[in-house]
């Protein structure tokens, strides 16, 4: 197990490098010049060639691509992710500012999504036809409502009509824990609903699949309670695909909270990322992608390890 994990970590480092290289190259291949963007405000006057050249030089974009790449890579290895083109602040600082915000949404949404999803999916898988139909429709709705529609509705109901929660905004947890949590509820909920529905569907299918196995009968035969049989002999066996999709969903969330962030005015990496791409702020894009990739790769390793624990046949050949 340990050796496996170590090997995976080593491969993970390689993967991070591949991702980094790909993003570096593709960013430079994408049309749109950071210098021109920087110089082109809303009503900008003439943008002269000199000005563009000067900004490009300031940003180090005038050097050959290979040199830029090696310098960037060197920086990454020493923990320096470069500085933002637009605000000249170190990218690490941006990440330190923004990652906690995204992480808290993803974390809370994942916890809600996974637990609610498993509970709902189990209920549908065990329950009768009514439960199955109710959950079928409910999760169908849940996965089909766009997050920004749901987000807007939540704002409409809880912030504008009931005035129970703030419409959006962000407070750092360290400064104002209550304010942080209060503002965290709606966005995490908006994200968690679809998450839970995806997990619920997977759980239902897997539960239905395992509930018919002979060992479930054995569990009943030795006098375990219904709940015990379900937990030990059904759910546990059914969890493997659920873990897989959960890991994937979390990974996807890490990089795509932008819509919720917009609606709830939450300063996460998602909106920073989208803005950075729009402004061709290469170092910021690269930094975020790297961070997300590392998180995701780590997550995948964990998922695979958990998978091995959940199904010993995978490991114990």
């Amino acid at each position, binding site marked *: 197990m340990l050796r496996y994990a170590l090997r995976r970590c080593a491969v993970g480092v390689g993967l991070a490098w591949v991702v980094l290289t790909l993003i570096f190259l593709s960013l430079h291949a994408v049309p749109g010049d950071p210098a021109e963007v920087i110089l082109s405000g809303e009503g900008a006057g003439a943008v002269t060639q000199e000005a563009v050249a000067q900004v490009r030089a300031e940003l180090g974009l005038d050097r050959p691509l290979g040199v830029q790449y090696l310098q960037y890579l060197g920086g990454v290895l020493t923990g320096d992710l470069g500085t933002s083109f637009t605000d000249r602040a170190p990218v690490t600082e941006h990440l330190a500012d923004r990652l906690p915000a995204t992480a808290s949404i993803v974390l809370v949404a994942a916890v809600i999504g996974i637990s609610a999803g498993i509970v709902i999916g189990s209920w549908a898988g065990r329950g009768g036809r009514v439960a199955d139909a109710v959950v079928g429709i409910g999760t169908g709705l849940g996965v089909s409502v766009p997050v920004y529609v749901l987000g807007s509705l939540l704002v409409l109901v809880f912030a504008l009509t009931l005035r129970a929660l703030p419409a959006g905004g962000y407070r750092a947890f360290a400064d104002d824990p209550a304010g942080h949590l209060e503002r965290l509820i709606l966005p995490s909920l908006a994200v968690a609903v679809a998450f839970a529905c995806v997990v619920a569907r997977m759980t239902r299918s897997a539960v239905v699949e395992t509930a018919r196995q002979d060992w479930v*009968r054995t569990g009943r035969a*030795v*006098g375990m309670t219904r709940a015990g049989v379900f937990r030990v002999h059904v759910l546990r066996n059914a969890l493997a695909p659920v873990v897989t999709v959960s890991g994937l969903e979390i990974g996807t969330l890490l990089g795509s909270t932008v819509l919720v962030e917009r609606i709830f005015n939450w300063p996460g990496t998602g909106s920073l990322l989208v803005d950075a791409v729009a402004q061709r702020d290469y170092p910021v894009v690269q930094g975020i992608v790297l961070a997300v990739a590392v998180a995701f790769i780590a997550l995948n390793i964990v998922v695979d390890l958990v998978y091995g624990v959940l199904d010993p046949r995978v490991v114990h050949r």
Partner: protein
Amino acid sequence: MTTRTDPARAGSPTMAPGPVLELHDLSVDFRGTDGGWVETTHGVDLALYPGETVALVGESGSGKSVTAMSVLDLLPASARRRGSVLFDGTDLVAASESALRRIRGRRIAMVFQEPMTALNPVWTIGNQIGRAIRAHDRTLSRRQVRERVLELLRRVHMPDPERRADSYPHQLSGGQRQRAMIAMAISCDPEVLIADEPTTALDVTVQAEILDLLAELRERLSMALLVITHDMGVVAEVADRVVVMRDGAVVEEAPCAQLFDAPAQPYTAELLAAVPHLGRGAARSVPAGDHGGGEVLRIDGLTVEYPGRGRRAAFRAVEQVDLTVSAGEVVGLVGESGSGKSTIGRAIVGLAPVTAGRVELAGADVALARGAALRAARRDVAMVFQDPASSLDPRRTIGESVTGPLAIHRAIPRAGLHARAGELLDQVGIPARWADRYPHELSGGQRQRVGIARALALSPKLVVADEPTSALDVSVQTRLLDLLRELQDQRGFACLFISHDLSVVELLAHRVVVLRDGGVVEQGRTADVLGSPAEEYTRRLVAAAPVPDPRAQRERAEARRR
């Protein structure tokens, strides 16, 4: 129908307690394709008294397992039961789930027919037995549970219980799984034990030990035992009373000795007549000359090691085995449970991690072959797996499964597959029109026959048959053995026949190889090895083989226990 007698109580009318478990007019229906109910067993009546052992015998597919499972309402969702099951004054058919739960495992326990699928692959067997214990006693500490688990494993003669407790089901041999199942069933000292073919995967010595264990429990706890078996030797040893089922109904019920002496029903007589007796079967002569010839299988110095994980060392299941099978020859492979029989079988078809040695199929080394060469070699060898339930694809109809090898090697046109499936099934006594059933809709013996039909589909040069008749009642078994012999005479295929049933081996095998702890102890012509064993180990095996005669077998059992 015979009147019910109570032989166990006959000598002591004063006690005369009522039956502990009483099945009354119990029927089980399965849902048919049209949504209606199809009656599978009809009006089964059966009583079980404390301290009594009843053997439930009968044709494969006659409804024995279904009846057993209906007692504790363990039937699949597609089944329903009618009638009544009285236990300790309550009707288990009408009882609530929670009432049933308190009875299950603690007061009435059950051993299932197929131990592989009946065990959860993601938990170690120690864990699963532990849960059975804790299901009825939440006060025990982890340590106590563990102690109890190890003690139970020791009682069922599991070798190296510490290691086995931490093994997952797929890491155990067939017999070891079965013993784990039994350990689980007796974990709470039940009042009634329903054991469905509890010794099919056990070699005779272990089987004897298990039977002793059951006898001891019966005495100590005055436990009632309902044992479903097709092994008349086992019946002869343990049963006080025998109930015979056929076509979903009870056809005869009689005290054991009476049944053996004077069966009332023709079916019972037929059944008894079909029972092979060790030592009475004329040992087969050397195969007919025209098929004789080259070696089909040659194993040299085969060593198989299952890799260990982490701190656990690798396990050497087979060590330095040499073995040959010639065309037209049947070689019996016997030996105690866990001695590596299945492993050798799997090594022949390239499924075991061969560490050293050669496995030559018609001159080609299977252990080294890859790709097309290996596939070609496999066209000529077929395997009957020990565990029929898990070796059939649950998502394929049995018709598709039996014709699988034909389709793989494009032996006949696709259009003909369905018809051929019917023929193959028919050959092993399964109605051709069942071809579109799924494995879970069959009885254990029926599944096993599907496995045999599949192995014979391609007319292979070598058949590796791993306990192919362990779940079959004697009449079907006889039929199948006849079939095998007949086909073999016709086609001259060679066969490595793995079995713990020495009388069957004697009937079929030209030569016998005796295995112990992964190594060959003795081999030679069947008559020589079984008739006058050279080794002490073989002698013990032969001695332990039960004979289908109540009086004789009881004496032997007495002798054994002394």
